[in-house]
């Protein structure tokens, strides 16, 4: 009976010793969106960043910024605008075009 108690006490002590560093790591302040990693030896390792809503917002901003880059025409030479798309105005009067059907383009 005595030996049983001794074994029980020893295992409780070992489990408790292992748990203390882990609980300590949880208790420490960590930046939002990170999770403390604990090594096998009980010491804390590098922080692991988890996907959060903030990350999604960040990605959305990057995508939106990229989209804006694509759409702008800021790098166009000074004084130059965007030409009118086909079908919105008549072709230029450069003597090459007749007065018949408007230009038509199809991409296959």
């Amino acid at each position, binding site marked *: 009976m005595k030996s049983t108690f001794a074994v029980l006490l020893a295992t409780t002590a070992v489990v408790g010793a292992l748990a203390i560093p882990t609980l300590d790591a949880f208790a420490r302040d960590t930046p939002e969106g990170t999770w403390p990693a604990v090594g096998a030896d009980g010491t804390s390792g590098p922080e692991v960043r988890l996907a959060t809503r903030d990350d999604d917002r960040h990605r959305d901003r990057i995508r939106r910024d990229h989209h804006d880059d694509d759409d702008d025409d800021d790098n166009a030479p000074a004084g130059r*605008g965007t030409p009118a798309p086909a079908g919105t105005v008549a072709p230029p009067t450069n003597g*090459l075009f007749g007065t018949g059907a408007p230009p038509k383009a199809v991409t296959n």
Partner: protein
Amino acid sequence: MKSLLATLALTTALTLPGLAAARPVTMTTTLTQYGGDGAYLALYVTDAAGAYVGSLWMAGEKSKYYEHLSDWYRATGGDPAEINGITGASVGAGRTLEITLDLADALFDAGYTLHIDAAVEEMRDSPNEIAVPLTAAGAGTAVPGRRYIASFTYE
């Protein structure tokens, strides 16, 4: 009354040839599988002396890339007025652009040459990729390009 009829006859005589002096021409450009983004293409015409006459089509809508169509850009300064109403989307690799234009008959067999400049983002520019004399006999004959254009025909 007589003078009115004479005026009417004269204006009709002058107008009819003008109406008949143009015809629909279909230009077909097929691109190679060059493995890049959509190609910008400038189709334009020079006269027998090599002077720029005018543009027929611009594939690609962002003017900031036009300087890469270097021969066309040198001739026009990138002026959007040159391509108002004849501008469409860029053309993807391996795809075919088919344009139908109402072109003046006077363009054919008169020493004019049709040129195509091509450019693809982050790839080499290809000015004068196609240079083909506009002749009635040349209609329907496929012409190969140098880099991005597999073939070009007009008919």
